[in-house]
């Protein structure tokens, strides 16, 4: 069983009210060196077997068409996580830069 991780962030020029709300709460907890927070989304897609190049291509397509809205968001990475069965912990594939 393989996993593909897709990270989506609001474009830098789009206002992020949720991130702002988090940023305003941080100083109350003593985290006073953080000047800005941007909140994004992570999707973990599971496929049968090892993650193939075809799986990654499909994930990139899904990321562009459904998981993100290109008007306001960027797909910042689409990458395979190493299979748990191999015991490896490193990530298998570099970021795709799909919409950068």
């Amino acid at each position: 069983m393989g996993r593909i991780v897709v990270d989506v962030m609001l474009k830098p020029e789009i206002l992020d009210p949720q991130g702002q709300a988090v940023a305003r709460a941080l100083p109350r907890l003593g985290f006073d060196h953080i000047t800005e927070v941007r909140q994004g989304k992570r999707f973990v897609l599971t496929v049968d077997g090892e993650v193939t190049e075809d799986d990654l291509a499909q994930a990139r397509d899904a990321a562009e068409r459904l998981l993100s809205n290109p008007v306001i968001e960027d797909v910042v990475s689409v990458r395979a996580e190493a299979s748990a069965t191999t015991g490896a912990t490193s990530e298998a594939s570099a970021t795709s830069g799909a919409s950068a």
Partner: protein
Amino acid sequence: MRIGVVTFPGSLDDRDAIRAVRLCGAEAVSLWHADDTLHDVDAVILPGGFSYGDYLRCGAIARFAPVMDRVIDAATGGMPVLGICNGFQILCESHLLPGALIRNDHRLFNCIDVRLVVENTATPWTRDFGRWQEITIALKNGEGGYVADQRTLDMLEAEGRVVFRYAGSNPNGSYNAIAGVSNERGNVVGLMPHPEHCVEEGFGPSTDGRGFFTSVIAALAAGTGLEVRQ
């Protein structure tokens, strides 16, 4: 005159939209999200609500409902389509309208009456209004901030496609105080406020919402949209 109102899982205002259509003199036709036909309607309304629980992004999942393929085809062919609130979000996710709606800048849910200026009366949904007429209708949403890149905003302004603009204070941080826009052809219009809640005396702040429905009925009677009936 048959005006379809689509119900998605989580739609809230489909019944009010149907009632508004009937009160203004047209036949209302319920369309189901899983339909793959528009049942011979002459125009379509995508109502407000929280389709698919607003999961992922507002309107993002509804955009791929089977009925939306038919709506997109019809809209591209010139059929009048109105998106209200969640319906506006669905039209933006479908790329029938430019831009997107994000969380209100103050992060609070709005449930207020708003004043709008009608800036474009050439659409089938606004022809019964006067240009620059001010109307008052209800606004109720958490993600009503209209955003688009500067190039798109400039294009909308230059082409007169800002159909409605908030008068007075901006209730949600919408860029350029935009409350509603149209596509290039003008047949597809979306807005965040709710005309369907403002069609009867004693309910809502005005009956200004009637103009949306009487407009499209008049437009259809004049032939606009009938040629693409399907």
